[in-house]
């Protein structure tokens, strides 16, 4: 049995697909690509797939991850190409590597996000960012299965900055957010931003996860979570 780690992107209009939607599409794509999946035992065998920390429905992502087990040794690059071809456009397989020891989930410590505010002046966004970063706490409330919960978003935010976009009617927010429990989602932070200033974009902002992985405190950057696997495969 071989275990593979897969990085994929969710782009364009397929950002509206949920993790469950992706799961169904993936199982079918694995069949079409003739990947020799390993199945669970029992009356209703399921392919052995584990998903890690999916981005919320409606957000695009350049860095989603899952693991699959296969019953015979496969060529990771061939799997990448075959799986990418078998998935709909917009669900794009970026990397496939053989898993080295160590849990993938443990390496996903933080995410880098990019948020495009349409019809928003850069100065307004900058003001909001400054106010947010100055705050000691930025609590929001959200509905959970167990009921309404109020939690702080500020402590999860490692960095945050505003930047100009190519299109002058837009402004860009970039941030690195630590994975916590309960998880602080980009929309939580947007809610908090709106609370500290009067920032009110007329259309919903476009959110993209650029990366997720180990958090390097020195640079406050997010590193490649598959680096260890690649190093092991290359040796």
């Amino acid at each position, binding site marked *: 049995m071989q275990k593979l780690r897969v990085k994929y992107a969710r782009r364009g*209009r397929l950002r509206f697909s949920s993790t469950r*939607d992706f799961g*169904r599409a993936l*199982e079918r794509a694995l*069949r*079409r690509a003739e990947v*020799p999946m390993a199945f669970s035992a029992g009356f209703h065998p399921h392919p052995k797939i584990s998903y890690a920390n999916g981005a919320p429905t409606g957000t695009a992502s350049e860095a989603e991850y899952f693991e699959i087990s296969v019953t015979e040794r496969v*060529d990771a690059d061939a*799997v990448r190409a075959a799986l990418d071809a078998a998935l*709909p456009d917009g669900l794009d397989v970026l990397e496939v590597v053989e898993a080295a020891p160590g849990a993938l989930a443990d390496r996903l410590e933080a995410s880098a996000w990019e948020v495009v505010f349409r019809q928003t002046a850069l100065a307004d966004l900058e003001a909001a960012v400054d106010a947010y970063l100055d705050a000691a706490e930025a609590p929001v409330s959200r509905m959970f299965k167990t009921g309404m919960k109020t939690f702080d978003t500020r402590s999860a935010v490692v960095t945050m900055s505003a930047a100009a976009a190519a299109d002058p009617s837009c402004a860009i927010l970039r941030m690195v957010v630590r994975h916590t429990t309960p998880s602080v989602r980009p929309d939580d932070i947007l809610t908090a931003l709106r609370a500290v200033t009067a920032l009110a974009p007329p259309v919903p902002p476009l959110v993209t996860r650029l990366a997720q992985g180990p958090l390097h405190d020195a640079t406050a950057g997010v590193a490649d979570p598959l680096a260890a696997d690649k190093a092991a495969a290359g040796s």
Partner: protein
Amino acid sequence: MPGESIFPTLEPLLEQVSKPIQYVGGELNSTVKDWTVGGDHTVRWALMYPDAYEVGVPNQGSMILYEVLNERPDALAERTYSVWPDMEALMRAHAVPQFTVDGHRALGDFDLFGLSFSTELGYTNMLTALDLGGIPLHAIDRDDTHPVVIAGGHAAFNPETIADFIDAAIVGDGEEAVLMVTDVVAAWKRDGMPGGRVELLLRLARTGSVYVPRFYDVSYLPDGRIQRIAPNPAYPGVPWRVAKHTVMDLDAWPYPKQPLVPLAESVHERMSVEIFRGCTRGCRFCQAGMITRPVRERSITGIGEMVQRGLAATGFEEVGLLSLSSADHTEIGEVTKGLADRYESSKVGLSLPSTRVDAFNIDLANELTRNGRRSGLTFAPEGGSERIRKVINKMVTEDDLINTVAAAYGAGWRQVKLYFMCGLPTETDEDVLQIAELAKKVIETGRKVSGRNDIRCTVSIGGFVPKAHTPFQWAPQLGAQETDERLAKLRDAIRSDRRLGSSIGFRYHDGKPGIVEGLLSRGDRRVGRVIEAVWRDGGRFDGWSEHFSYERWMECAARELAPFGIDVDWYTTRGREESEVLPWDHIDSGLDKEWLWQDWLDAIDEVEVDDCRWTPCFDCGVCPQLGTEIQVGPTGKTLLPITVVGGSPLRERTPSHA
């Protein structure tokens, strides 16, 4: 610009609605063609299944037409579905038109708008789509810039209730019909669109197989019945009766070749292959069986190829062998065994969605669940008493049923589901109470043969709605209240048995939706006003109990029908005489009205008729008209295993050290 994507205006709304994925398209095997793919005379179809995306996207009929049309170089077809009320409200607020999910093009930009109605409960959804599409609701208010609205599907066999809203209706099999219509439209465009919309509709009507309501006049008798439906003499060449379309060789139409695989969850998470069309069992309540005659089988090899190609194109984990009565395929045993053998190792499951009661089916069911759990089997005796089963021509005796059930429990099945109807013609409380007796016998038998007490039986009951083009088209429908009372007695009869009652589940619907369905099924043009009033009052998604409002339908019907001196009862619970002109008499389903009437009389006399495939022909009228013999196998062929050489193509190549 026509044909331009409206996605930029739609996108911001997607953030605010439930399940936005249903509006974005991009399904595996979907197609977006260039707007002018066929040059200036490109024929553009928008196809709609007028229900939610999750119900519409797996619909076989729509998928077939979508593919057949898109294979034509001079045509394109895109799909549109009903949007949920949350989306409808936003679309209205932001002036976003009804759109296709493929190219996100505005419905109003297309030449043709084809709707497939499997049930009448989609009519209000059609009005939503027209209205959101900026298309006038009434056909006579449309001009040359608007799409030609064409209805198809089983409900189109009585198109009269929607005659005001559609430009045309087509009955029967759609695949050849849409190509024929495309030819007519293409020729008319090449000719420079002479005479505009009316000329195009005339050309369609003159083919003899497209019904254009506006060319027909209806007159009424003082008592409200129809006096006459006849072509308006101002339009020469329009036929008195409109013929249905019948595809004779299913093997020549192996569609869908590339079934759509949606990202969103849908009601059928599987790939389907239609193994035959039609049914000759002759159950008298069954409109599908009557209007799809004769039986046309796909060959075992044709089925094998479609399964193989479809699985490769989709990656689905289950294949449904589709038809009205799947176990009736002449080679069903070989088909299921062959497929089960082929796909045993790849864990592809097989299912037969509709099957009849007989012992043979247990072997089939066992074959289908070779490696799986034997959870539940469904049988449809339809009628509780021997007598009522003779009335409906469901030729199953109680012994048949008990033997079959015994075989099922004996083979390890734990649960049996029995499907019945309530409100059948001539039915009394006694007939329905027999369902309880039958269910108790099923449990007793099951406990005996399995030696266990935890086996179960679920009784599921649907209300009978008389339909056009069946022997029961003249029958009075049972009222909603009477239906509910009868079902309450049955429920009490089941519950009161302390020893067996707890092993019997009971599921039923109340009688109200059936009355609305009955009104729409056997209504005439006057009912169109009711549909429109209900829609204007907010009626949407009538097939969904959380959206359906019986009270709204009854209030609107009372108001709109009063000027004609008729009411809902007149359409539903009233029996018809032989001489009455029925609203769908000018739609030719192939069945002789005299034959249907005779069969209705036989029903009242409790006389059964055999399946005409196995016994002499009863002259129902279908076969001579189509100039054909009923096509049945067997071909004697079998499915050979597909051999996979050398395992997965992705296998790691062992480096060769030469």
